[in-house]
């Protein structure tokens, strides 16, 4: 198994996106807030004249974003035809998965379980594999949590 992964820290935890999910990594520009949108929606921004929605992964996993500074890099993903830019603590490196994705022994915790199905081994140690569709949809399932 040699799937490429984009390593990222989310709320201080070592995580990874599948490289095939990530279209590009961009530098955050001006983000226009969206009043009354779910909390994990930071706002909308434009990349090369394409509007995209900025999602704060930390909020989507019900973690406190203020506790973790953010390095201004966004991972661009596409879910159901819409472009999203995912905000994380920092985007780190590219690594190759050494193992097939395997369930986290004992689960990753209530909120984490929703967004990551599995973990994988890399040169940099084990990482949580993030399901971007779940992150993007995150708050929709639990509107009460984020409202």
């Amino acid at each position: 198994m040699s799937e490429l992964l984009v390593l990222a820290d989310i709320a201080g935890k070592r995580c990874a996106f599948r490289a095939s999910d990530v279209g590009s990594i961009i530098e955050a520009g001006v983000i226009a807030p969206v009043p009354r949108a779910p909390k994990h929606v930071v706002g909308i921004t434009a990349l090369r004249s394409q509007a995209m929605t900025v999602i704060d992964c930390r909020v989507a996993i019900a973690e406190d974003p203020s506790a973790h500074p953010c390095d201004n890099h966004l991972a661009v993903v596409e879910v159901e035809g819409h472009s999203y830019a995912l905000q994380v603590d920092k985007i780190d490196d590219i690594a190759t998965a050494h193992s097939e994705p395997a369930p986290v022994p004992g689960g990753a915790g209530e909120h984490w379980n929703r967004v990551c199905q599995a973990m994988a081994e890399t040169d940099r140690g084990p990482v949580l594999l993030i399901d971007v569709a779940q992150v993007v949809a995150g708050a929709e399932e639990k509107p009460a949590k984020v409202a």
Partner: protein
Amino acid sequence: MDDLLADFIEETREMLEAIGSEIVAWEANPADRARLDAIFRFVHTVKGNCGFFDFPRLEKLSHAAEDALADVRTGRRQADSRLVTAVLAIIDRISDMITAIEAGRELAEGGDDALINALDAGAETAPMVGQEPVTAQSADATNSGATVPSAAPRSIRLPVELLDRVMSGVSDMVLARNDLAHRLQEAGNQPTVDGPFERLSGILTDVRDAITRMRMQRIETLYTAIPRLVRDLAADLGKQVMVDLEGGEVELDREMIEMMRDPLTHIIRNAIDHGIEPPAERLKAGKREIGMLSIAARQAGNKISIVISDDGRGLDEERIAAKAISTNTITEAQRAKMSHEDILDLIFAAGFSTAEEVSSVSGRGVGMDVVRDNLEKVGGEIQVSSRPGEGTLFYLQIPLTLSIIAGLTLKSGGQRFVVPQSYVEEIVRLRRDNCDIEDMGDTSLVTFREERVRMISLADVLGVKAEVPREKANLLMLRLATGDLFALAVDQVQSSSDIVVKPLPPAIMASGIYCGTTLLDDGQPILLLDVPNIAQENGLMSETRARSAQVPNESELQVERAADRAMLFSKLDGHKRLVRLELVKRIETISASAIDRSGRECRAVVDGEILPVIGIDESASLDTSVRLLRLTDGSSEVLHAVGSVEDAVDLADTLVPVDESDPLIESVTLIEGESIAMIDSHKLFAVHGAVPRQAASKTCRLPDSDWAKSILGPLVEAAGYAPAFDADADIVITLDASEAPSTGKPVIALRSAPDDQVEAGQRNSSIYRYDRERLISALRDASKGEAA
């Protein structure tokens, strides 16, 4: 009508092609239900269309085939090879007739009845023998018909997805261009880049226009058939119906237009058949004997709203409920608990149709459930509201997946938003326009045109803090498709521009405040407000109920009020004038440079149309932008330059005719103690009115040289001509030509030598090529000659 006919022929041809293989398959296996359905649909559609175009022979044939196939579908009859042959013969005949219609000749009489008889289930025995040759003969005719070269296709068909892709690519290009423009501006002046960029930009604008037009059609195309439909139906049913169509200029995706055709027709039929009462009954009920059917379309963000209302007897709640109970849609107990609206909603239930019989107009069992299904399939909605004795109103909403709309940028709570211009009735500045806000409990009301209108603050809707105190806010008076008016208070109103609406992800859509996003020229994303939804969430939409109650009186009211209202404005020289309100199409603001003052009459190009401008004295100096009243009598238009637009006023006092030195003055009246002159509408259009002409609608042939292309071309274009280099043009310009070409068209001869280097005779017969004044006036005179 010719267009419609061409469409019909093309459509039928296409269907014929498409079912060609179905026919073969059906012949192989007459029991194949799917093939049968396809062929049934074909003859059914042909029948429907023929009725509209008055092709009795075609209609008779298709009707007969439809009947026979309907029998097979319902199992009353078995499909055997004889029936298949008979149906095929009819389809072949239809194909021949279509070819004949297209060629503009009549297909030889006779033979139709034999074909129809061949369908007859009882015709199995003796007559069959006699029929055989006819069928064979008609098959021969088809074969020979097929060898007749059909006219070359004038159009090609493309899959809509391809157009979608091109369209979305072009939209992205526009956004990328805007972004690039912004960056170039930041980088400062770079002549080597700016020139090509300008050119690219211009080309892109043209391409975008063309692509947009490719997919968009004015809803007028849908409207054109309605008056006739209404007339025919009304005549058939012995009723009098007047139809009022509004918003024909709203543009709608081609596919959506097609999708809307059937539901609209269906609703109109129902309205005339069941809604509007016979004249005698109407008079008895105290209504005008002519029923009103009004259809209004409006573009709103990425949705089109269509409101269809009649002033008939309304939906019968009891009858609907009884019918629903009898069809087991609801139970008696449920009925007792249902509200008026819920019961009306039952007309959309599956299988619900109050039409007792199947007639040739109403078709075979298409009910409102199909209408709703079809609308919902494309993401649309339909609602109904009705008051007994007062009328029924259908409110349709259909989405536009991708569109370019005019938007108004505004600011609230430090952030910019955009609203579709189509909603904006007027912008009121509270601190200037002396509008008062009254607080009734938690509800705020403003007085607008002597009407109390509810006001909400955009900042409150968004849950942000307004930066401008409420007394100083700007109000957008927004008119919904339902007719409801409300005021939206915003901090600042910025500019209006064309925006490309892009969809938003579900998470943001769910907030119910936004319906799309777009990028502004500076590359910043901005959200498009979902006005109807905001209105609904805040209880500002009357759910169409209030309006339906007004429906019966509205038409009369409008007539009465419009006749005695006028627009009060100041001319550029400060004199106040009145003009009848119904003449005012809208208020335009254009840059002064768009006004051509060089001729005897001023002209301006507005939205690509050349219109005459009055109200500008030769000596008057103009600001950079000029406000103009766009006046229309229905066909001709004229622009009147104004210093400021004061207000719409009631003409309460008598109009005193005067004999002024100004020929355009009709009379004088008192408005708030001041005597103000009223513009003579008749004379205005008699003297100045002109049917709007597409700018660059005429072509002008230029000499084939680089000078002509790069230097003369733009000038000619600015004068309203499209430069052309081929022989077929409305005006011909020659350069240093020894003799004029004999095209019969006006010729303007140019020469390279300046005036002081040529003889007097030549000076008059030709124009020095840099004598701009003379060239422009020559072009103008030529265009007048053309028009005359």
